[in-house]
């Protein structure tokens, strides 16, 4: 036997409407409201043991307390699946479902599922973190929305193959995974071209989302007083590559002393970057990590001080997430060493 618990708001929990939206969380044995439907669709091998009910306003304005109370409710309960909603178009309910599902997944590590309409603000806020099924606008879609969640949850429990977000009917979490189509890429490309030429419908396999653009940092006030670091994604490392930084798809960054150096010597530093022909960089590593020029700027008083360490990694085939993580590591270290500015060189 497997066990499931369902979260609903005050209205679907049959406490009342907007007038009781301030009510705090309560735990009820058995199924209330939509939980009955969950039990029907999940079948005999899964028991919906409890229904948790909470007012939307209470969850919205006392989120931490509400989540702590719900966590307490769940502490000693057998739990294999957790459901919240469906929230349809109800904004506060959507946010509540997202917050509760996030807490349950983090605290108990069980699969969590919810359902919202695409215009529910909770959808955009939580879609990257959890599976949110595409739900209707109102409770008229209750049956089909609950059924979709239950069918998918059963597949997860039974270890059945799981299809893409589009095919399963939930909002994509931004996780791109390889799958086998059944038709060769070459054939799909020519089919798509014929469709495009004939102005027929086709579906691109890579929707072009706009890039995240970080906001620029504040301008440096007085460069003459700055401690400046050199950061490179050009793969310049000490000759033995002591930290084994990868030549592509890097996840590791290094920090190496420049103490007493006027320039990087090709005897001591090499280029391991494999996204370009590094012959010239190996002959003179300063063309990628310009220690020679920075030392001159320090001598001429253009910059206050050159921080005597090189921050380095390889920027080719590097996944964005890995790049962000490495940057965060470097930034933390820079803050510890009171670095005011950095120059970042690539290849």
């Amino acid at each position, binding site marked *: 036997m497997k066990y499931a618990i369902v979260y609903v708001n005050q209205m679907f929990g049959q406490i009342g409407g907007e007038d009781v939206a301030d009510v705090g969380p309560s735990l009820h044995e058995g199924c209330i409201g939509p939980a009955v439907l969950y039990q029907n669709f999940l079948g005999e091998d899964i028991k919906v043991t409890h229904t948790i009910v909470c007012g939307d306003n209470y969850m919205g304005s006392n989120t931490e307390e509400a989540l702590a109370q719900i966590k307490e409710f769940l502490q000693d309960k057998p739990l294999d699946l957790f459901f919240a909603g469906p929230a349809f178009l109800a904004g506060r309910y959507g946010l509540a479902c997202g917050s509760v599902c996030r807490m349950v997944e983090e605290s108990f590590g069980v699969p969590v599922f919810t359902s919202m309409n695409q215009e529910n603000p909770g959808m955009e806020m939580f879609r990257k973190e959890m599976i949110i099924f595409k739900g209707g606008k109102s409770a008229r879609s209750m049956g089909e929305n609950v059924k979709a969640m239950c069918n998918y949850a059963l597949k997860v429990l039974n270890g059945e193959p799981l299809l893409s977000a589009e095919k399963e009917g939930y909002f994509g979490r931004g996780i791109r995974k390889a799958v086998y189509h059944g038709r060769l890429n070459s054939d799909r490309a020519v089919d798509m*071209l*014929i469709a*495009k030429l004939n102005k027929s419908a086709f579906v691109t396999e890579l929707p072009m989302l706009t890039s995240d653009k970080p906001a620029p940092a504040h301008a440096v006030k007085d460069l003459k007083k700055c401690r400046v670091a050199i950061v490179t994604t050009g793969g310049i490392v000490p000759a033995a590559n002591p930290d084994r930084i990868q030549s592509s*798809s890097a996840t590791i960054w290094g920090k190496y002393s420049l103490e007493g150096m006027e320039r990087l010597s090709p005897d001591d530093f090499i280029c391991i970057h494999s996204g370009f*022909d590094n012959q010239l960089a190996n002959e003179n590593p300063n063309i990628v990590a310009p220690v020679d020029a920075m030392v001159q700027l320090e001598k001429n008083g253009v910059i206050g001080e050159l921080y005597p360490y090189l921050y380095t990694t390889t920027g080719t085939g590097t996944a964005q997430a890995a790049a962000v993580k490495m940057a965060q590591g470097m930034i933390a270290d820079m803050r510890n060493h009171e670095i005011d500015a950095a120059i970042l060189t690539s290849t």
Partner: protein
Amino acid sequence: MNLKLGNFHVKDIVFGEKTMYKDGILTVNKEELLSLILADKRITKCDIKIARPGDDVRILPVKTTIEPRHKMSDGYAYPGQVNPLAMAGEGLTYCLKDMSVITVGKYGGFSEGIIDMCGNGAAYSHYSKYVNLCLIMESTDEEEEKSLSYKKSLSYRNASYKASEYLGRTVKKLTPDEYEEYDFEPILKRKELELPKVVYVYHMKSQAIQRNMNTTLYGCDADKTLPMLISPTEILDSALGTTVECVAACGENDMDYANNPTIKRLFREHGKTLNFVGVILTESPTDMLEKIRCSKMTAQLCKTLGIDGAVLCLASYSNAQIDFIYTFKEMEAAGVSVVGMVMECCGKDGRSQPLVLMDPKADAIVSGGNVSELLHLEARGNIYGDLDSVLRDPWSGAWAKDDIYGPSLREDGSLLIEDNCMWADCSPIGFSDKTVEEF
């Protein structure tokens, strides 16, 4: 231009007294082939092994894959590569199908790859389906091989061509199992077809400043070229040569070039749904101005010819995706309907931006996979090559240490790697049915 390929389907390879082909069995005199390879004094060691589909074998580091061929009419099997220069794309060429000659070294690097012949790893290379003759070698270039992430592997490449010619000659007096015929009528002599005029656009790799690293066309380095129109039959007749300037998963090697399934499909559509006007070869330089020049000149060439549609093939990823997106946009602006073929780089967890440059104008894309997807490949009983290379050498997509994942080579001999290492797995040339979907 008319090209006829005479195909011999190799069902198995065995060692025997006389190198010959009969009824689908390729017999190889191992000593004779060894002496041919070792005649090149740069090769210090060579062993030859056969890897069949289903064998408990892992091959690494793979350096080249090539299909044995013999030119029956005037010309050469691999013109301008090891052979003297001659034009490809016409006449009769014999091909040994369903097999490849694989060169394997000791040291891995940026472009070396892995082929598994069975188990879960066999899903990640189309070469797992062929009978492979593996030349496992070491060379006097050892210092270069050890120290560099980019290895030119010249002696390996030379050996692969020589072995392939040697095997190709075994069928020259025989009758092929079947013929494939590609008729490419001169485009100015075609009777007016009321069909959309279509080109296949291919980005040759040209990031290296040294010679013998970039894609070659009849032996000419891609970075000496500007966008040009050639006959698709030339590609199918080995006008393009391997690059070492690309990770394994992108699949740029002689055998893939010469069997381009997208070009073959465009031929099948010719006269029915479209008018296949040819192949535009362009390059993917590192300099920004050159990238812009190549993308604009490709579009201009389409305009000059009156092209309506194109399949645009991204050769590799990272900075080559800039060439891809620029060319896509320039061609669309020139009135060409473009469909792009790419591989993505979304990170081990699939959450990273798939291309370094994204643009809403690139609205029709076929994806060949995520090169950085995490794979856990079962251990294999037999290693052709050197398994320790995974820990020791600068692979793309394998690592010696990692705080989360630990080393790529596990104690039980299994591998935790990125798809990057798998030979030709995400190639946008189109051999696979792999795509990417959002979860």
